[in-house]
């Protein structure tokens, strides 16, 4: 009789023992499941997607230059138009791009003859450039060109001359500022005899859904080889 009562008691206690073991299992499972970690992984994946989209834009600038095959005018026009196109596409998705570009080109360099370096600066930063200074090391002291204002979505053109008897790397210093930011850049203009070149400098930024990406890059193309 006593044994039977003990058995009945044990049968009841087994529910509590199972419940405690189950709770221990759930607690261990819950501790291994960190919501913060899951959300962090999601954020990293989404940022990776933003980065891929920015990479696409960045590489397409180079393709836009390629479509202007053998014409520095087409290269300049295509990249300016492509910059505008990218901004419209991103705006249609609720995003924004900001780009400043400076494109330089010159025709075939003849020894000890003046060659014109044509410059096109393009502001698509979403705000007015209040000051742009270009310094070109073609002479000593270097020549400078300045612009007091460049409204948004506007290009400005200018030129420098250079005269060389041999291949030389000139330097073009760029400084611009707006009411909110400024930037200084240095780009190399490689002048080789009997060659025509295009040098494009791009400073582009994508305000993504989750992260911002900015890159500055220079692309140099030899248009005619001897």
């Amino acid at each position, binding site marked *: 009789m006593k044994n039977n009562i003990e058995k*009945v*008691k044990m*049968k*009841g*206690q087994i*529910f*509590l023992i*199972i*419940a*405690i073991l*189950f*709770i221990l299992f*759930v*607690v261990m499972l*819950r501790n291994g*499941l960190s*919501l913060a970690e*899951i*959300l962090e*992984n*999601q954020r990293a*994946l*989404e940022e*990776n*997607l933003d980065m*891929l*989209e920015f990479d*696409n*834009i960045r590489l*397409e*600038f180079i*393709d*836009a230059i*390629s*479509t*202007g*095959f053998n014409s520095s005018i*087409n290269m300049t026009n*295509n990249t300016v*138009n*492509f910059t505008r*196109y*990218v901004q*419209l*596409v991103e705006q*249609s*998705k609720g995003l924004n791009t900001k780009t400043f570009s400076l494109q330089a080109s010159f025709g075939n360099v003849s020894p000890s003859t003046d060659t014109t370096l044509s410059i096109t600066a393009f502001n698509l930063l979403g705000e007015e450039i209040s000051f742009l200074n270009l310094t070109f090391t073609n002479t000593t002291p270097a020549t400078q060109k300045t612009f007091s204002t460049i409204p948004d979505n506007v290009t400005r053109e200018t030129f420098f001359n250079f005269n060389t008897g041999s291949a030389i790397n000139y330097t073009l210093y760029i400084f611009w500022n707006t009411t909110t930011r400024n930037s200084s850049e240095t780009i190399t203009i490689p002048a080789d005899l009997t060659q025509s070149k295009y040098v494009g400098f791009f400073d582009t930024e994508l305000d993504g859904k989750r992260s911002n990406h900015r890159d500055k890059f220079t692309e140099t193309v030899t248009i005619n080889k001897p």
Partner: protein
Amino acid sequence: MLRTLEAVIAILMISTIFIIFYQTIGILPDFETINWKIIGYNGLKTLDRTLGLRQEVLTGNTTAIEAKLSGIMPPAANYTVRICGVSCSSPSISSSKIVSVSYIVAGYRDAYAPRQVVLYLWPKS
């Protein structure tokens, strides 16, 4: 009687733990759609680098692009491709879960013709 009481206590203990632990966890993020986007983007990029995406974009051949994507897309997803200028009109797809990813091309060879390829993905019903 005592056994019933202990069973009820056990159920209450388990229920309490579930309520305490899982009432604050919220909805877990949906990784499937993000993964689809990344797979979709990489699929378009692969097509661009090796399988002539630009040529098909220039001629507006979405069928050819979809055929080339067939081996790359997630098996659990349906997909369709649109080629558009600045903005694309949404395709008429009746699914509560649809994702899209776009890929911009500036042109093909010496033809400057900027377009965006938009790839829409949704689950197979």
